């Protein structure tokens, strides 16, 4: 009956161009990169084949596991922040007065490039002149923290701008998803006497759960390979306190002339991300089945 919808020619026509692009521009390079992982190569001279040495070193490398732990922390915080963004989007999408303007304002930071965001937050965190400490001083705090210079808090301090940077991204997606919920259903619920909270909880959230699942995936994988602000703002320091997987990989490959090892780290990152995705899809499977 659904003959048209399984027309092989059309399927090929629709999927092959995109598939071809990612196969050549993403998959071939990552396979090559995995191959460099078997090499002792400084990225400059000759390569020497060293078998699994890089990967064995990787498994025993404390720094790698510390950076993995940091990346996981970021993934957890990013995922938790999704709830806040979802709450904001619920309010914005509920057609309260001024929501249109508010929505536009909320999304503005998303337009800024990492260069600008890094500069802004480096100035906020400046221990003497920065806004964070000026505020604390106003509240009478005397021993104000040194933020990015303190190995105990640098990692968490840097999470703030990283997570904030993506606020607009998720609010935008949730907003679009919520706007996508047909008005009729909500109207019907209202007539049945449901409160706004009930509508949000019982109707809207289940309807966008599919998209929520996608954003969890995006947040986790995005965090695991996150690089930009951390590299600019702390360079992974002080003394490795804020090193994450991608910054560690970059450092080894591009700064320390261990291109082979850097490639191995990149491959490790991919394997970990794959495992996490598999885990998440397992964990969220049941809901998915109900949904679709």
């Amino acid at each position, binding site marked *: 009956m659904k003959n048209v919808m399984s027309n092989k020619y059309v399927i090929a026509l629709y999927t092959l161009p995109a598939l071809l692009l990612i196969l050549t521009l993403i998959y071939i390079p990552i396979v090559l990169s995995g191959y460099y992982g078997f090499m002792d190569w400084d990225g400059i*001279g000759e390569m020497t084949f060293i078998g699994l040495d890089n990967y064995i070193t990787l498994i025993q490398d404390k720094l790698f596991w510390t950076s993995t732990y940091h990346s996981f922390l970021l993934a957890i915080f990013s995922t938790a922040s999704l709830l806040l963004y979802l709450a904001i989007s619920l309010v914005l999408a509920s057609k309260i007065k001024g929501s249109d303007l508010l929505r536009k304002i909320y999304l503005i930071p998303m337009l800024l490039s990492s260069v600008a965001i890094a500069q802004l937050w480096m100035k906020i965190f400046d221990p003497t002149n920065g806004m964070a400490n000026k505020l604390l001083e106003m509240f009478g705090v005397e021993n104000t923290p040194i933020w*990015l210079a303190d190995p105990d808090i640098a990692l968490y301090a840097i999470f703030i701008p990283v997570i904030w940077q993506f606020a607009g991204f998720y609010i935008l997606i949730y907003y679009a998803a919520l706007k996508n919920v047909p008005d009729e259903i909500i109207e019907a619920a209202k007539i049945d006497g449901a409160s706004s909270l009930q509508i949000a909880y019982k109707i809207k959230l289940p309807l966008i759960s599919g998209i929520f699942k996608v954003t969890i995936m995006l947040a986790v994988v995005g965090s695991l390979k996150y690089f930009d602000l951390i590299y600019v703002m702390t360079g992974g320091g002080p003394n490795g306190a804020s090193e994450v997987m991608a910054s560690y990989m970059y450092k080894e490959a591009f700064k320390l*002339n261990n291109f082979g090892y850097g490639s191995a780290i990149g491959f490790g990152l991919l394997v970990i991300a794959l495992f996490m995705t598999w885990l998440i899809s397992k964990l969220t499977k049941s809901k998915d089945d109900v949904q679709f």
Partner: protein
Amino acid sequence: MKKKAFSSVMTLALAGGLILGGCSSSTGSNGESSSGDKTVVKMMHLWPEGSSNAQYTIVDDIITAYEKENPDVDIQTEILGNEQYKEKVKVLSASNELPDVGITWAAGYMKPFVDGKMFAPLDDIAKEDNFVAGTLDAFSVDEKPYAVPLELNITPVYYNKEIFEKYSLEAPKTYDEFLNVVETLADNKVTPITLGNKDRWTGSMWYMYLADRIGGPEALNNAINRSGSFEDPALVQAAEEIDKLVKMGAFVKGYNGLSNDEAKGYFMNEQAAMYLMATWELPNYTTTPDVSQEFKDKVGYFKFPTYEGGKGDIDSYVGGPGVGLFVSEQSKVKDEAKEFVSYLVEEWGKRSVVDAGVIPATVVDTSNSELHPMYIDILNDLGNATNLTLYADVQMSAGVADVHLNQIQALFGGQTTPEEFAKTQEEALAAEK
């Protein structure tokens, strides 16, 4: 409505396809035809017009003049910012596509390129006598130069004369006097020293000077070239002195999280009294129009003070050549490239100090040029220098340098003891050989 939206998307996509196709073919033909019958020499450098106008102009002028003298040569430049330059060189060398002429840093940075046969030996164009003693060595591997130095920097301590006067302080000559200055300022809630130790090489300079003043220039050099040990008592003692300074509150709050640029801001805005930095900062205190004359007049400098009972003397400096020019070994126009490099270095030497405030590595005759007095003083100091110790992280290979720099950050951050500090670096250095 619907139709419209769709058709506009489609036209965009189609138009895109056309542009794409058009572009790919046109660039292909352009790339080949533009060279014509001229010899193209590709050069990459890191002095963009915006931030380094003086250097940019000098290079640009030199290229114009050179092309006039050699009408069959076409020099094509690609200009990048500092970080981007380093990253791109990495990618290019991994793909064996280095430009004919480019910028390199000395010693530890350069060595892998030489070992990988990426840089051509320049012994035929680099003559020892043309350069300030020692600068060419920094760009040599096994006595053979692989790049020619363009700059030379030493590292004085800049200080704010007004702040010093306010607390009746004088530029210190001995380390005890220096400690007194630090203590007085700290007691009066003035930040004594600003330091951007997120960048780590900044803190390394403080450590290097203490190592030099306590153990003489040999102590650190020997530890690095493996004829000595990093656990030399002088090197441990230098680390203890750093620890002491940290505990005295000598450095600006949160120095381990500040970049050099941010830290510099404290000095430029008179929130800190002292700043140890190389002479590339001089334009800020002399010629740069963006900085107020009022501030420039307040800035003085002193040589890093001597340490009582130490082996180093006051005319020994931390510093060295900054960047140099290499010629790619793979270049198809090696002869033309070399000729251009030697021309550039010579012309650069004539102009850089006067026009850009950059002290060249070539011997300068300053007798008849109108230089700011601070430059004349620095050039004289340079002339009287007894020793120049190349920045430790530049001397070391990238891997060991990273250990050194991390240890510096840990030492300043109180996360390691002076003994551990020395031991970790000794192990890293020993493991490399």
